[in-house]
C-alpha cells in the first residue's frame, strides 16, 4: 500500500475502494470473532473456501470474515447478501449444501434458518429476527460490514471520513464542542461527559499529552469491548486520532488485556495498515499533525481497568489506584495530561463527527444520549450483545430482545453494571437504561453487563458471589475495601450458613455504607452495590435465611435439606448408585431414604431422578 500524502488522496482512495464488493454477485458474511471461533467458525470457513474454489465461484462470491455480530448463541452464523439470508448453527458438513443450494441455485435451506422460539416460525432474513429488530446497532452493526484485517473494507464503507472532515474543516475546539454537544458520556462505567474530559485535557499544562483506549474489560461476562476491538478496530483508531487532534495529544495507547489475543492481533494489523497509508505517524495525510499509537497488554487484573491503576500499570508500576484529588487529565500517565476513554466511547466518535452531534443526541434520554451495548447473559433465551438507544427499558431488553426466560421459570431480577452493579427486581423493569435512573435505583449502567436471574436464584447467594469476586480483585491498598469487604463476606457467610442474626444484618449494612463512602477508588466505592441492592429489594430473602434458617430458592447448601418423597419414589436405585457420598439406602422397588449425616447436598440425586421424587426444603 502506498502512503497517502494528502487528504485528497484518501478521498480518492475511498472512491476507488467503494465498489470493492461490486462485480461479485454474492457476499457471504461469516462472523468469526472469539465467540464464533469457539463455536467452530474457523472450520466452517475452511470448508467454505474449498467449496467455493471447487465450484469455481471465486469471481462471483466474496467471503467476508468479520467480527462478532452479537447473536453469539446462534454461532457459527452467516449472512448471505443480497437477500439478507441468515443461517445459524452451521456445521462444516452443511457447507457443501450451502454452496450448491444457496450460492449457486439461490434456494434457501430451511434446516439452517433461525426458528423464532416465540412463534415457532422459521425466519429467512436477518433483519426480521426479533433479536435484531428491536435493536439500534449504530456501533455493533458496523462489524458486519468490515473484515477487520483489511483497512480497505473500512475505507470503502466511508471510514476515515470523519478524520477528513476534522482535518479539513474543523479546529480542535470545534471538535470538542461537537462532542460536548452530542452529549456522549463515557461507556466504561463512570459515564463522565467525554467532551468535557477532552476539554480539561486540552487545557491542561504539560507536554506531550496522551490519549488512551481502555480495553481492559475485566467484568466477568462482559465482552462488548472485545467485540468492537476485534471486529472494527479502525473505528477506535479513527476515534483516537480525532481525539488526539482535538486534545493536542502526540501519543496514544490501547491498553488491552492479554486474555484477548484476537483483539490484540486485529488492532495490531489495523494500526500497521493505518500507519502504512499514512493515517498514523508523522504528518498524518500530509498535515502537520502527528500521532502514534502503541499497544500495551494488561495482565488481566480487574482493578487495572481503573484509570489511575491502568496508568500506573502502563508505567510499569504495580497496578494500584491512587487518590484522584489531582485529575488524570492534568497528571496522568507519566504525570502528564492524559485522556482515557473506553473502547465503545472512542468507537462512537467517528459517527458523531460524520452525522453531527444533533443526530447522536436525538437518541436517548435527556442526560444519557446515543446507544449503548449490553452483554445480555443469565437465565434468558437469547444471550449475546445487544445495542439499544439509551432510555430503552429493562423490560424491552429482557423480553423483546432477550426473549424472556430461558426455561419457563419466572424472571425475578436483573443485575446490571458488572460485578459492582446492583440487582433490580422485576417491579423495576420499566426503568429506562439511563446513567442517572439506574444509579438512583441502587445499580448502574456500568460497562454494560446484564445478568438475568430467575426464581431458582438465591439473591443472598448472588450477593455473596459478587462480593467474593471483588475481594479477589481488590488491590488491598485501602482499609474499607480490603478489610470492610472481607468483614461483609464474614457476615454473608454467617447468614447463608445459618448463623445469621438481625444485628449481623445491620452490621453488614453499616459496613457496606462505610466501604462505599470511604474507599479510595471506584472499585471499593461500588463494591457494596450487590449487597445493598439485594437487601433493599429482596430483604425477605435475607430474613428467611436469618429467622427461619431456610434458603427459599434452595441454593444455600447449609440451609437446605434433601429427602425422598415416598409417594413418588419407585425404588429404581438410580440415585443410590449416583450418590457419591453413599448417603442413599433402600431396597429395590421400595422407597429409598437419604441419610442426613452423610448427605453433602451436592444435588446429584435430584439431577438423576426421573420421577421427580427428590424434594429440597
Amino acid at each position: 500500500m502506498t502512503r497517502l500524502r494528502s487528504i485528497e488522496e484518501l478521498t480518492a482512495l475511498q472512491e476507488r475502494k467503494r465498489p470493492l464488493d461490486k462485480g461479485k454477485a454474492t457476499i457471504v458474511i461469516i462472523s468469526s470473532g472469539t465467540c464464533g471461533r469457539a463455536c467452530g467458525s474457523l472450520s466452517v470457513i475452511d470448508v467454505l473456501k474449498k467449496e467455493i474454489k471447487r465450484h469455481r465461484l471465486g469471481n462471483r462470491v466474496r467471503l467476508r470474515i468479520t467480527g462478532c455480530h452479537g447473536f453469539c448463541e446462534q454461532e457459527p452464523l452467516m449472512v448471505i447478501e443480497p437477500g439478507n439470508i441468515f443461517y445459524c448453527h452451521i456445521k462444516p458438513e452443511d457447507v457443501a449444501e450451502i454452496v450448491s443450494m444457496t450460492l449457486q441455485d439461490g434456494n434457501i435451506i430451511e434446516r439452517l434458518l433461525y426458528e423464532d422460539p416465540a412463534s415457532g416460525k422459521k425466519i429467512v432474513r436477518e433483519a426480521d429476527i426479533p433479536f435484531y429488530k428491536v435493536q439500534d446497532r449504530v456501533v455493533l452493526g458496523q462489524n458486519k460490514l468490515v473484515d477487520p484485517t483489511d483497512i480497505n473494507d473500512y475505507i470503502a464503507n466511508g471510514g476515515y471520513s470523519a478524520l477528513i472532515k476534522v482535518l479539513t474543516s474543523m479546529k480542535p475546539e470545534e471538535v470538542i464542542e461537537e462532542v460536548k454537544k452530542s452529549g456522549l458520556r463515557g461507556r466504561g462505567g463512570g459515564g463522565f461527559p467525554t467532551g468535557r474530559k477532552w476539554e480539561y485535557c486540552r487545557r491542561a499544562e504539560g507536554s506531550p499529552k496522551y490519549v488512551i483506549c481502555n480495553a481492559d474489560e475485566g467484568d466477568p461476562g462482559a465482552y462488548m469491548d472485545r467485540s468492537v476491538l476485534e471486529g472494527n478496530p479502525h473505528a477506535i483508531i479513527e476515534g483516537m486520532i480525532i481525539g488526539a487532534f482535538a486534545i493536542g495529544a502526540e501519543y496514544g495507547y490501547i491498553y488491552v488485556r492479554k486474555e484477548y489475543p484476537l483483539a490484540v492481533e486485529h488492532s495490531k494489523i489495523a494500526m500497521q495498515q493505518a500507519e502504512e497509508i499514512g493515517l498514523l505517524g508523522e504528518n498524518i495525510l500530509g498535515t502537520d499533525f502527528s500521532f502514534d499509537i502503541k499497544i500495551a497488554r494488561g495482565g488481566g487484573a480487574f482493578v487495572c481497568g481503573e484509570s489511575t491503576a491502568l496508568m500506573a500499570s502502563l508505567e510499569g508500576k504495580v497496578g494500584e489506584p491512587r487518590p484522584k484529588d489531582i485529575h488524570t487529565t492534568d497528571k496522568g500517565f507519566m504525570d502528564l495530561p492524559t485522556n482515557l476513554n473506553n473502547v465503545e466511547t472512542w468507537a462512537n466518535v467517528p459517527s458523531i463527527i460524520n452525522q453531527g452531534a444533533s443526530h447522536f443526541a436525538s437518541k436517548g434520554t435527556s442526560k444519557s444520549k446515543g446507544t449503548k451495548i449490553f452483554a445480555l447473559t443469565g437465565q434468558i433465551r437469547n444471550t449475546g450483545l445487544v445495542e439499544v438507544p439509551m432510555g430503552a427499558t429493562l423490560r424491552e431488553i429482557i423480553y423483546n430482545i432477550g426473549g424472556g426466560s430461558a426455561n419457563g421459570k419466572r424472571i425475578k431480577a436483573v443485575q446490571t453494571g458488572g460485578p459492582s452493579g446492583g440487582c433490580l427486581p422485576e417491579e423495576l423493569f420499566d426503568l429506562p437504561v439511563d446513567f442517572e435512573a439506574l444509579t438512583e435505583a441502587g445499580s448502574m449502567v456500568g460497562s454494560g453487563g446484564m445478568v438475568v436471574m430467575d426464581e431458582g436464584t438465591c439473591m443472598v447467594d448472588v450477593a455473596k458471589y459478587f462480593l467474593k469476586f471483588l475481594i479477589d480483585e481488590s488491590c488491598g491498598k485501602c482499609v474499607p475495601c480490603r478489610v470492610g469487604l472481607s468483614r461483609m463476606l464474614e457476615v454473608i457467610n454467617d447468614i447463608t450458613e445459618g448463623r445469621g442474626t438481625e444485628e449481623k444484618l445491620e452490621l453488614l449494612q453499616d459496613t457496606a455504607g462505610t466501604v462505599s463512602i470511604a474507599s479510595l477508588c471506584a472499585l471499593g466505592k461500588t463494591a457494596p452495590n450487590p449487597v445493598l441492592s439485594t437487601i433493599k429489594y429482596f430483604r425477605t430473602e435475607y430474613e428467611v435465611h436469618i429467622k427461619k434458617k431456610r434458603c427459599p430458592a434452595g441454593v444455600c447448601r447449609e440451609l437446605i435439606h434433601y429427602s425422598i418423597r415416598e409417594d413418588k419414589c419407585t425404588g429404581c436405585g438410580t440415585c443410590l448408585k449416583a450418590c457419591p457420598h453413599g448417603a442413599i439406602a433402600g431396597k429395590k422397588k421400595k422407597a429409598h431414604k437419604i441419610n442426613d449425616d452423610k448427605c453433602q447436598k451436592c444435588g446429584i440425586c435430584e439431577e438423576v431422578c426421573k420421577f421427580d421424587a427428590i424434594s429440597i426444603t
Partner: protein
Amino acid sequence: MSAYVTLTINGAKVKAPEGRSVLDVALDYGICIPHLCHVRGLTPIGACRLCIVEVVKNGKSKVTTSCTLEVEEGMVILAHTEKILKARKNIAEMLVAEAPNSRAIQDVALRCGVKEVRYPFRNKDCVLCGRCVRACSEIWQSKSLGFVGRGKERHVALPFDKRPEFCKRCNACIDLCPMTITPCPGPMKKGEEYLCGLCESQLSMAEEIPDSCIDCRLGEGFSCIRKKP
C-alpha cells in the same frame, strides 16, 4: 516565599501555604482529624481512610482523604459531619478488630468513638499502613521494604525475606510502625483481645472537645492509669 491561600475547616477560616495538605494544615491549627497512614514529609497514599473529610464545591460535597488533598483558595472543608464521623468510627472499629495489639490503633478507635467492636478480632501484626515502606524508600532511598501481593495476599516484605545489604539500619521503619507500642496492660493473646478504653482518663476531657488535637502522638502521647509497673 511561598504563596498562601485561605480556606475554611469546620467553619474556621485558616491560612495555609500552597501545596500543603489539608490534614497537615488542620493539625497545625490544632484541629483533630484522626489519621494513621500519614507521616508528615512522606508521600501520602490515602490507605487508612481515617482522615476522610467532606469538600464542598458548588454546593456539592465530595468525600476524600485530607492527607492527599492539597489546600486551595476558598476551599470549604467539613471534617466532622455526621456522615464522616460515622464512617470514620466504623473504619476505626475495623482497624482495632484487625490489630487490637497496638496502642496507637486502640487510641484512634477510642478517639473516633468506638465503644464496641462488632467484628471478631483478628489480631494481626500489620495493618498495611505503609509507613515503613515509604520511610525506607523516601527518606533513605533504600527500598529495603516493599509491598508484595495483591488484595488478601498483600503484605510487607524484605527482598527474599532477608535484611538486604543496602538496609541502613536506621530503624525508621520501627519508629514509625503503629504496631510497636502494645496496649498499656501488655500484649493481648489470641482469643483474649478487647477494646482497651482504659485511658479514658485522658480521653474524657477529649470527648468534650472532639475536634481539637489532643496530642496522642500515635500511641505515645499518653498511657493509661493501669499501666503495668
